[in-house]
């Protein structure tokens, strides 16, 4: 089974470490992929507020490209994942949208096909490969590493495609298979503020503060994320979000970086160097090799 890999814009920018580590995991678990030919921006959450119809057409182009190669899509970025899913639903539910999209695609010689499945790496790893198989391939157990699993919003909401909406556990199970210890984290699906940090800092900071603080108080060594924007928010503004009584400093990695590490990938190839809050000291303290 081969998949069309749809990185999305962020994985080529602030989220590069996500892409690097994800590809490493794909290699380690031999998941066959090919990058979606000439993919375009999904429109993300912002485009919708300018012009919904267009954003559906944009997303649909990617779906059609995948359909042309008869492949299902893997979309690691939470925003991409949701937008593509949502586009499929709305095309199905609203005749008007369907008409607009099909015509637009027709204009560029593409056809919409609702058989394309849009899937998230969590889903693939859990349901196509399975916890057992992964555990069996772990070469460096993350034993003793306390991880706060942070899912954010758009993986589980509004569509619960492969996990529970209120208490998702897919990432927990994958990281446990890698030997890590999952700590209770009641805010695992609380919003990180998305682009608000950029546009309305004081709002964004508040959210970032309590998300990181909660993880830190529960003794997390690291926060694991599934979304480039979440990772960016939680990691890059810890100083600003700190308060005297408890300064924030907790590494925030992509779950794929942790998995890749456990599956034996060298730290050079999984973008650890791109972190602003370094994980290395923690790994050393826990005697987890990472070279």
């Amino acid at each position, binding site marked *: 089974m081969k998949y069309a890999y749809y990185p999305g814009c962020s994985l080529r920018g602030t989220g590069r470490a996500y892409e690097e580590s994800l590809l490493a995991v794909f290699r380690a678990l031999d998941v066959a992929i090919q990058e979606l030919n000439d993919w375009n921006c999904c429109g993300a959450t912002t485009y919708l507020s300018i012009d*919904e*119809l267009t954003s559906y057409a944009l997303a649909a182009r990617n779906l059609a490209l995948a359909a042309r190669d008869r492949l299902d899509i893997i979309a690691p970025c939470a925003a991409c994942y949701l937008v593509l899913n949502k586009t499929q639903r709305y095309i199905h539910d609203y*005749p*008007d949208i369907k*008409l607009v999209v099909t015509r637009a695609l027709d204009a560029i010689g593409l056809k919409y096909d609702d058989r394309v499945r849009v899937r998230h790496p969590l889903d693939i790893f859990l349901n196509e490969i399975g916890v057992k198989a992964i555990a069996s391939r772990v070469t460096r157990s993350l034993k003793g590493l306390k991880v706060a699993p942070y899912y954010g919003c758009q993986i589980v909401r509004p569509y619960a495609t492969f996990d529970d909406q209120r208490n998702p556990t897919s990432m927990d199970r994958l990281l446990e298979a890698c030997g890590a210890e999952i700590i209770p984290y009641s805010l695992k699906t609380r919003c990180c503020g998305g682009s608000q940090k950029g546009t309305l800092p004081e709002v964004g900071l508040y959210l970032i503060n309590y998300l990181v603080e909660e993880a830190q108080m529960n003794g997390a060594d690291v926060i694991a994320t599934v979304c480039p924007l979440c990772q960016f928010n939680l990691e890059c503004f810890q100083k600003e979000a700190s308060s005297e009584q408890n300064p924030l400093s907790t590494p925030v990695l992509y779950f794929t970086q942790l998995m890749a590490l456990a599956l034996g990938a060298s730290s050079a190839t999984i973008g650890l160097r791109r972190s602003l809050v370094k994980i290395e000291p923690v790994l050393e303290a826990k005697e987890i090799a990472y070279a």
Partner: protein
Amino acid sequence: MRNRQLIHAPEPHEAFEPRIVAFFCNWCTYLAADLAGTSRMKYAPNVRVIRLMCSGRVDPQFVLDAFAQGADGVLIGGCHPGDCHYQEGNYKALRRYHLLQRVLRQMGIEDDRFRLEWISAAEGDHVRSVINDMVEKVRALGPLQLNGMTEDALEEVAV
């Protein structure tokens, strides 16, 4: 962006109003139709309901006769499997339905013109959707055209 339904290209039989005969059982579907009424649901006026005590009473001849007399569609409504007021009349109806459907196919009568639906006393909205749906499908099919042979056949079995 409005979400009203898409405007269809005009159907071939726009003017044509199908005539559909429905046989509803007294305990489930007829009640459901009453409920649709008391709840003031609105649906297409193309169906003429004939009340029977049980869908099991529907004699294949009734259906054939209806078609012979110019019905464009026939609908049978009974209680859900397991809910029959007479224990298993609706199962008998189901068996007869399948046999009859085959006969009708041979006569060139499309499947959409002959339908069996399980509708419980509480499902007024289901009555509405089934009737609207069937009327649309039959309207799309157009008036029932019986070739001479079929007509004779119908006459024969019906009376």
